[in-house]
């Protein structure tokens, strides 16, 4: 009996495979379902409210380079924001960054550069000081960013690992927040990139934590995953005094640890 049934079932299956055009509504439903699952994984049963008034996300509709997709998270009332989470839904490691702000930090504008694996929703979730979660979403068209090689060779990409630069973008006025851009030299190998000659995967090695302080007060700490681009670039806000020092500490998944202190404003002759 079953012997007769198998070819019939196979034919049915083949028919089903061949004729299932997916409507845009179905696609939206599948993407919502993905977010529901991810939200549960990251925030558990906590309520997450959609609100562009609290948190906004600037991301290119169509990215020029999927391995370097800029994301800018803005919050309307920075003093009310304790942390930000950036989630790239379709990336296999979706949580690109979890940022917690300290007393010397300013959550007004945070910029990151990310890898995007395929066309995806991107969520920016803000957590307020009173424990509420607000979310905003953008659809980004980019593809292939996770497997894109970090450079011409593994050796080349590892050169100068851990070197840092910091650029303060604003005039320092005590009591007024300023923006700074931090650049860290690191290949951020995500384990999904293949060496073109050996056909072997370059072992994963990426920055998992960055801590920034100003005059020993926390600006922010960032926990990252495989979705930050090679040579991470992070723009953040901080609350300067007349004179001070920004200290950066970065740790990677292989136990690499780098620290650097920058004078703010920059000491010049």
């Amino acid at each position: 009996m079953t012997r007769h049934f198998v070819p019939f079932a196979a034919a049915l299956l083949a028919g089903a495979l061949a004729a299932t055009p997916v409507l845009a509504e179905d696609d939206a439903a599948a993407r919502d379902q993905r977010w529901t699952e991810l939200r549960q994984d990251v925030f558990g049963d906590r309520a997450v409210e959609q609100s562009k008034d609290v948190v906004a996300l600037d991301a290119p509709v169509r990215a020029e380079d999927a391995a370097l997709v800029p994301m800018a998270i803005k919050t309307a009332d920075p003093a009310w924001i304790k942390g930000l989470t950036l989630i790239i839904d379709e990336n296999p490691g979706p949580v690109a960054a979890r940022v917690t702000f300290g007393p010397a930090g300013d959550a007004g504008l945070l910029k990151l550069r990310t890898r995007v694996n395929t066309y995806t929703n991107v969520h920016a979730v803000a957590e307020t000081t009173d424990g509420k979660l607000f979310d905003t979403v953008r659809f980004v068209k980019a593809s292939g960013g996770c497997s894109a090689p970090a450079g011409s060779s593994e050796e080349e990409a590892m050169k100068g690992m851990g070197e840092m630069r910091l650029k303060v973008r604003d005039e320092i006025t005590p009591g007024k927040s300023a923006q700074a851009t931090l650049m860290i030299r690191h290949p951020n190998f995500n384990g999904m990139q293949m060496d073109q000659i050996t056909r072997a995967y370059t072992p994963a090695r990426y920055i998992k934590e960055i801590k920034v302080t100003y005059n020993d007060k926390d600006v922010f700490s960032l926990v990252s995953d495989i979705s930050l681009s090679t040579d991470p670039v992070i723009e953040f806000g901080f609350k300067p005094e007349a004179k001070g020092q920004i200290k950066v500490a970065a740790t990677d998944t292989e136990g690499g640890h780098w620290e650097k202190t920058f004078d703010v404003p920059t000491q010049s002759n």
Partner: protein
Amino acid sequence: MFRLMRAARLAAGALVIATAAAHAAGGPGSASEPDGLWTGPMQSYTPSTLKGAEVVDADGVAALAAKGDAVLIDVAPADRKPPTLPEGALWAPQHRSIPGSAWFPGAGPGDLSPAQEAALKARVLELAGGRLDRPMVTFCHPDCWGSWNMGKRLLGWGFRNVFWFPQGREGWQESDRPTAVVKQDSVWAAAAKAEAGPAAPQ
């Protein structure tokens, strides 16, 4: 623009390859057709043709799919979990493809074991309902030899209507058509699991 960036990046890699291996790479589609299956780097410039098969673009695939009897075979590799993922980090891969596709991760390499080759052939014939005149469409990503190899295999097994879609999932997305989340073909997954060795799906 994204294609340009990707091409530039591949070209940088290709320069290295050119000195290490015999095949020079002039750009996407510039490789010449090997006689048999390709066993070199899976992600590198492919030929622009596949003897015996028809090369199609996204519109062509959409037209074939709309007719209803084409079998779409995606051989894109599965996302590989980094072994050093920190504890507590979220790993939640899902595969998006052309709606209705059967996904065979790890079926692209030219050097599958005889057991895998047999399992692949049996499963694909089953999906085609045993009809060698069934339109068969193979794809993965741009500059991916896996789909070229799959097309070559289909021809070798006697399929007469083989279509190769070299732009793959990215080409499909760029034509602004929706993708769907697809699971690994269950029969192929079981066969690959039984094999579990160096040639298991990536």
